């Protein structure tokens, strides 16, 4: 039996991109994962498992997916794309930049539309950046300097589990130190409070008069020094419970709250007692903290981009950050989620000038979200074929969009089985990039990192990049340009 340990492995799951994982490999299988969160661990331990993967390319014949050779599948995929007049090439966030580069070349060659998953997550954030800009920094800058950290409409504990520990509240930095002690103190009190609450839970009145869980419960000395964590969300998430200030905003009223904060930062008094369900007194106190810090940062999530307001919400959050720079140093960053979606935006941008929703049907890159974004194309029923790479739109797009997607020829390249691959006409299984194939990916703050190949892929499976190159080659053959 052979055992080896691989260090400094980058986790290919969320935008935190922890690159300090340590994997133990026994007989070509990953058996132990050190330093990862539950999500990271699950990925390395279970994702490569053969039972939820296609091991052979599949082609649909008589309504059933049947095994095919790689050559057949590639040829069929190339035919689908070459014959279509307006194909969409979608996904890209779960693969490496090297594959994305080939994907864009393919989209250009077939005159299709290429879009990545940002279109349904931080697409509005990207559009807001195009409106007003973005003062941002790398995560290490936050670790070293931030004394106020705001999480707005995001849930790092669930979506980016190590974000807080590695970059914001809990790590030590050059100018700031870890807040573990404060958190543990509060956590102890929280547990106590929960016990009391449980005991009294039959008495709603008593529950109502218990003091809110806020900073008043800490010794003032413990509070004054060090970083402060502010959480703004519609739900009391786990990170909210760790916060020094929690602002529970009414669903869909972030815009109003942002406006109120902006006014307060500019020294304008509010004539009301409550905004978006939040007492103005609390807002005033929070704004005081915000303008008197040395370095503040706002991390915002899909709660802002996906609810009422969308682009306007993010515009305003960025504007608020810009205003705050009159008072002290403030930066803002989207909590980019999925694996390499940031890298997809980067590659799209350097090759085509635009971060997503790029239409090549005119022979050059054309971009107009709302028109060239994939959900809109599907809702209009314009596309006549699709290639989906490392993504699962059937599971994540609204029903009406999926209806059109599956009506037309559908090619899927994905390492694992998914709802989308079950609906496909051609499935080409690939190696897991970051586990079975190497590549490059971008952290949420645009720091590029290498992805390692730590084990061999199942026999016969190639990387996304290799498969795409084969399809591109085949398309060129069909078009007589190879």
């Amino acid at each position, binding site marked *: 039996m052979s055992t080896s340990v691989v260090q400094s492995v980058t986790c290919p799951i*969320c935008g935190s991109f922890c690159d300090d994982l340590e994997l133990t490999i026994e007989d070509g299988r990953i058996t132990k994962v050190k330093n990862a969160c*539950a*999500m990271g661990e*699950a*990925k390395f*331990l279970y*994702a490569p*498992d053969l*039972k*939820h993967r296609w091991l052979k390319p599949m082609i649909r014949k008589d309504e059933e997916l049947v095994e095919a050779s790689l050559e057949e599948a590639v040829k069929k995929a190339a035919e689908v794309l070459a014959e279509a007049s307006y194909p969409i090439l979608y996904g890209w966030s779960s693969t490496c930049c090297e594959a994305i580069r080939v994907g864009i070349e393919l989209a250009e060659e077939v005159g299709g539309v290429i879009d990545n998953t940002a*279109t*349904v*997550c931080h*697409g*509005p954030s990207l*559009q807001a950046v195009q409106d007003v800009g973005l003062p941002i920094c790398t995560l290490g800058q936050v670790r070293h300097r931030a004394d106020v950290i705001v999480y707005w409409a995001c*849930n790092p504990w*669930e*979506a980016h589990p190590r974000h807080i520990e590695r970059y914001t509240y809990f790590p030590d930095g050059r100018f700031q130190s870890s807040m573990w002690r404060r958190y543990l103190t509060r956590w102890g009190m929280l547990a106590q409070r929960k016990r009391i609450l449980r005991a009294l839970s039959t008495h709603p009145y008593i529950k109502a008069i218990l003091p809110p869980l806020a900073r008043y419960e800490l010794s003032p000395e413990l509070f004054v020094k060090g970083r402060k964590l502010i959480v703004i969300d*519609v*739900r*009391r*998430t*786990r990170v*909210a419970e760790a916060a020094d200030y929690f602002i529970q905003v009414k*669903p869909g009223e972030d815009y109003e709250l942002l406006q109120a904060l902006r006014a307060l930062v500019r020294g304008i008094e509010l004539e009301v007692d409550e905004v978006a369900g939040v007492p103005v007194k609390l807002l005033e106190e929070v704004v005081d903290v915000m303008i008197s810090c040395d370095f503040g940062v706002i991390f915002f999530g*899909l*709660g802002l*981009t*996906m*609810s*009422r307001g*969308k*682009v306007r919400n993010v515009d305003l959050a960025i504007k608020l950050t810009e205003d705050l720079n009159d008072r002290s140093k403030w930066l803002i960053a989207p909590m980019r989620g999925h694996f390499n979606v940031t890298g997809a935006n980067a590659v799209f941008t350097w090759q085509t000038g635009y971060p997503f*929703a790029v239409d090549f049907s005119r022979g050059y890159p054309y971009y107009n*979200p*709302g*028109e060239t*974004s*994939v*959900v*809109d194309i599907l*809702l209009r029923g314009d596309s006549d074929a699709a290639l989906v790479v490392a993504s*699962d739109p*059937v*599971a*994540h*797009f*609204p*029903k*009406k969009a*999926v*209806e059109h997607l*599956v009506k037309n020829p559908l090619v899927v390249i994905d390492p*694992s*089985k*998914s*709802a989308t691959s*079950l*609906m496909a006409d051609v499935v080409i299984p690939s190696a897991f990039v970051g586990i079975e194939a190497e590549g490059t990916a971008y952290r949420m703050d645009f720091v590029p990192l290498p992805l390692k190949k730590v084990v061999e892929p199942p026999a016969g499976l190639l990387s996304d990049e290799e498969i795409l190159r084969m399809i591109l080659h085949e398309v060129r053959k069909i078009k007589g340009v190879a």
Partner: protein
Amino acid sequence: MSLSKLKVVLVTGRSIEQGVSKERGKISDEYFQSVATCHMDPDDMKELGVKEGANVRVTTEFGSVVVKAVKSKRTPHKGTVFIPYGPWASIVVNPTTSSVGMPYFKGIPAEVEVAPKEEPILSLRELLRRHFGRG
């Protein structure tokens, strides 16, 4: 006395269970268990008269889907229900993109009711067959 229908705001999103179970296969039972769920405030559940683990039907202007009711761990959020991203949530979200390319995944007006006996929770394949005629 419990209500027969509860008017709520539907929020869909990521959860760590979904994140973890996804890696066990997107057509696996774990994944199914974690995303075919509706996370509700216990008070709401009481009002509706549903118990943990019972089936509820969530209906919006855009569709209707049966999922399992579970008590939310992060309370209170009365009047708001949460369904993790996945094929079940997608049946009921608002496809309108208001010309920025992105549908509404959060803040969708919805109704929750106890699911009738003859409407069980569909498995992934059943769901795909029912709604898209393939899978």
